[in-house]
């Protein structure tokens, strides 16, 4: 019987080693930009976790002498990044603000994208009438401006706070992400659904739930991760908008979005540091999540393993 593959039998022993698990060093070597992203995210997270230890001031301490209204507030030794209209230390507010930004950004993007991905793949898998109905519902959702949608959600649900996190704001931000993710994921899933391995799963008599979760969802992780990382940035911005409207985080809780809005904007000519540093913080956060997302996608794709 020529069933064996002699050519490989020699190689067999040599190759009979489990493909080595790739470690952190491989990641740094292969994804330098992604590593930069990770480091930045790590710094942000550390800042958020150890805010109490790091921050030089209490973010809510008001010191009118340091306010630009009284000629103070410029970056100095005491206030390295300056102080805001109420004379609160900007560095401390930024560090505490990372807490708000990361928790709301990450949680809302994660929940929004996950639910959206499940809806999108199911819609593609079942097809036909189900797909049509789901897609029209998504059209409906997409036709609302994000802010309006968020306001509706906040108006409907009573304010709930769990572990110091405002669940309402998270839900309000997550819901607009659902239809967007569902759209993108569905288009990817439509291509996957027609592939023979999905047919093979069906001929093996697997349940729809199993096929969706085991065979389709893992194969749409690339766009999923891209979306999540992009939406974390968006969520941080959305949180700021909601806060500005008085629907999200409320003063005096430090939030990057809040720092960019409100009375602080009146000082942008005389005290630009009040806008620049929170703006930078948002940009760096968004940028590092995007870098990380891109390289994570490459890394998770088994076809690109080296």
């Amino acid at each position, binding site marked *: 019987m020529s069933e064996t593959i002699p050519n490989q039998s020699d190689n067999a022993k040599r190759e009979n080693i489990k493909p080595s698990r790739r470690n952190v060093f491989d990641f740094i070597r292969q994804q330098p930009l992604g590593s930069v992203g990770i480091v930045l995210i790590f710094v942000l997270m550390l800042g958020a976790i150890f805010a109490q230890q790091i921050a030089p001031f209490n973010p809510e301490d008001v010191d009118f002498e340091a306010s630009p209204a009284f000629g103070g507030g410029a970056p100095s030794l005491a206030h390295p990044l300056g102080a805001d209209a109420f004379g609160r230390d900007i560095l401390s507010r930024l560090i505490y603000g990372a807490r708000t930004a990361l928790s709301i950004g990450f949680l809302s993007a994660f929940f929004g994208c996950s639910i959206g991905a499940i809806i999108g793949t199911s819609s593609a898998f079942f097809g036909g009438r189900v797909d049509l109905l789901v897609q029209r519902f998504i059209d409906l959702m997409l036709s609302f401006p994000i802010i309006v949608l968020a306001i509706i959600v906040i108006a409907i649900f009573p304010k709930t706070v769990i572990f110091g996190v405002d669940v309402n704001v998270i839900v309000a931000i997550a819901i607009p992400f659902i239809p967007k993710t569902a759209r993108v994921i569905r288009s990817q899933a439509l291509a996957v659904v027609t592939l023979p391995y999905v047919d*093979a799963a069906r001929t*093996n008599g697997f349940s729809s739930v199993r096929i969706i979760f085991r065979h389709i969802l*893992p194969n749409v992780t690339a766009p999923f991760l891209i979306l999540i990382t992009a939406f974390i940035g968006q969520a941080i911005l959305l949180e700021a908008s909601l806060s500005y409207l008085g629907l999200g985080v409320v003063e005096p809780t430090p939030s990057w979005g809040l720092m960019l809005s409100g009375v602080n904007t009146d000082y942008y000519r005389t005290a630009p540091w009040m806008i620049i540093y929170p703006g930078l913080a948002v940009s760096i956060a968004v940028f590092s999540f995007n870098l990380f997302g891109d390289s994570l996608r490459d890394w998770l794709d*088994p*076809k690109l393993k080296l």
Partner: protein
Amino acid sequence: MTNSPLLDISNLQVEFKLKNGVVRAVDNVSFQVDRGEFLAIVGESGCGKSVTALSIMKLLPKRVAEIKSDYVKFDGQDLTNFSETEMRKIRGCRMSMIFQEPMTSLNPVLTIGDQLTEPLITHLEMNAEEATKRAVELLNMVGIPEPQKRLSQYPHQFSGGMRQRVMIAIGLACEPDLIIADEPTTALDVTIQAQILELLKDICSRMGVAVIMITHNLGVVAAYADKVNVMYAARIVEKGKASEIFASPSHPYTIGLLRSVPRMDKKRGGRLATIDGLPPNLMAPPSGCRFQPRCPMSTDACSEVPFLSNRKGSSKHSVACFYSEDALKKGSSIYVSDKEIFEPINVKKQAPLLSVRSLKQHFGVSFRSGWLSSISGTVKAVDDVSFDVYPGETVGLVGESGCGKTSVGRAILHLNLPTGGQLEFNSKDLNESSIALVRQDMQVIFQDPFSSLNPRMTIGEILEEPLKVHNIVTETDARFERVGQLLTKVGLYAYMRDRYPHELSGGQRQRVGIARALCMEPKLIICDEPVSALDVSVQAQIINLLEDLQRELGIAYLFIAHDLAVVKHISHKVIVMYLGKIMEIGDGETIYQEPKHPYTKALLDAAPIPDPKIERNRKKIILKGELPSPLNPPRGCVFSSRCNLATDDCKEIIPKLINFSKDQSVACIKVEEVN
């Protein structure tokens, strides 16, 4: 000058510099092409055929590819030091190329006319009017009806075969001396392949154009080539006149290639000769003879590099093997010992395992035809198809693409719900709800080994999943054991369970696909073109594996394929389909010996036999035209629009399948008359 060869290549060598090493894709290749000659380069994929062709045209990306050679003389001029500008004058004008994929080798946003006149205007400096006139001539020459009208159409308005004709017309536009055709018919159906190759051969011999055709289809080579170069792992291992190579193949690789293809003209039975293993990785090729690791005749002497040397008594036929005379003498016996040639499996007639009765699969389609109007219609992908599959039997299902073979398979598996007819499996009625009960007994193997395995799961997880989900093997250890057994059974190694699909070759993946089908111990496997994406040597391995498994486990196969020779080799019973209907059904041997339906005859004629002596003396009916649109099939007999025997009756009466003899039924009203 006229005596010197048109193309003379000496020591061509192409290296690709990649991130993780250097790949020498072409190594010391020398050959000549005379004017008007038809040279075929054959070999498995990845052996350097296409790269050779591209490097002659200097079409390889300069950044990664380094081409070295003593000389590449084209019509006396050495192309080695030609600049890009000089090459541009030669490309498309004196030397042109036809690519494999007619769907993507024409620019979709330009009309056929634009693309056809472009080389005429740039190279021959014609004005628009002259160029259009010439373009019409060219389209006429390649057999495209109403050329004037066709010029203003876009590629998507042409079928695959028509596009390949247009490609040939573009290639011939400037009356070149040499045409390089890279697998020009691989993407086409046999009947269209025959049309295109006849056309190419005919035009080129009339115009005195030399052709280099790259192909893996030995039948095509036998039918048309004057000379053959056999390539293996970047080197030429054998070259000579086609007649000599086919009559006395002297390199073990050539012998293997020739013997691993099932032959339509031979009686059924026995195993195919297979070349074990896979072509080497060119990043680290074996030293010495590159075929040595796979060669059944290799000895210690093979660690030296064998150079091409002429065979005794022939100045044209040369072989790169130390044991060529020995190999020639032994022939295919170096691969298959006599013991391994056994009788085909006999099927005991019992109750049918699967019985299909007037199966229908109609798809409603609608598409926009204007701003607000749309056209809707029905495609009868499968229309009134009935047949039985007995336990342990292989039923072959053949036909051109678009004839509904795959739809039959999918309807049986309920991947698409059939729109009509009855299906019975194991004497149980099959419908949407009862299908779940027989899922485990009915499995499928797909065509494309690349997309039939979930890329995010390891081989072990893929094979384990059904065992786990259906509680067939509940214990983890037992499952582990079982997966190992399955892998060994299909000729892989148990340690491969930790691999991901992309880490395996196409053939290995197809074996995993088979293992997945086997793990539920099915009674019937629907094989949807299981070998058509594989190289011939691997194809033979898979066919042998399928036959061994059938012998051992008594599985029945419904074998869907377009390769007539493969179907003939493996099937007990054969069904010939055309536009959703069965044209002929019956015992395989009988159908291939005495086809009764005009379509079966034409199909068999179109498939070339890999032996120039037989192939060139066959009387052939070459089918005209192409498959009609399934949206608007001919009334009466669906084949009537292409049948050379069709009369007015055929256009009105829908023929029924009539028993012609005990084991042959034909759907043709003229069957008595014709035969």
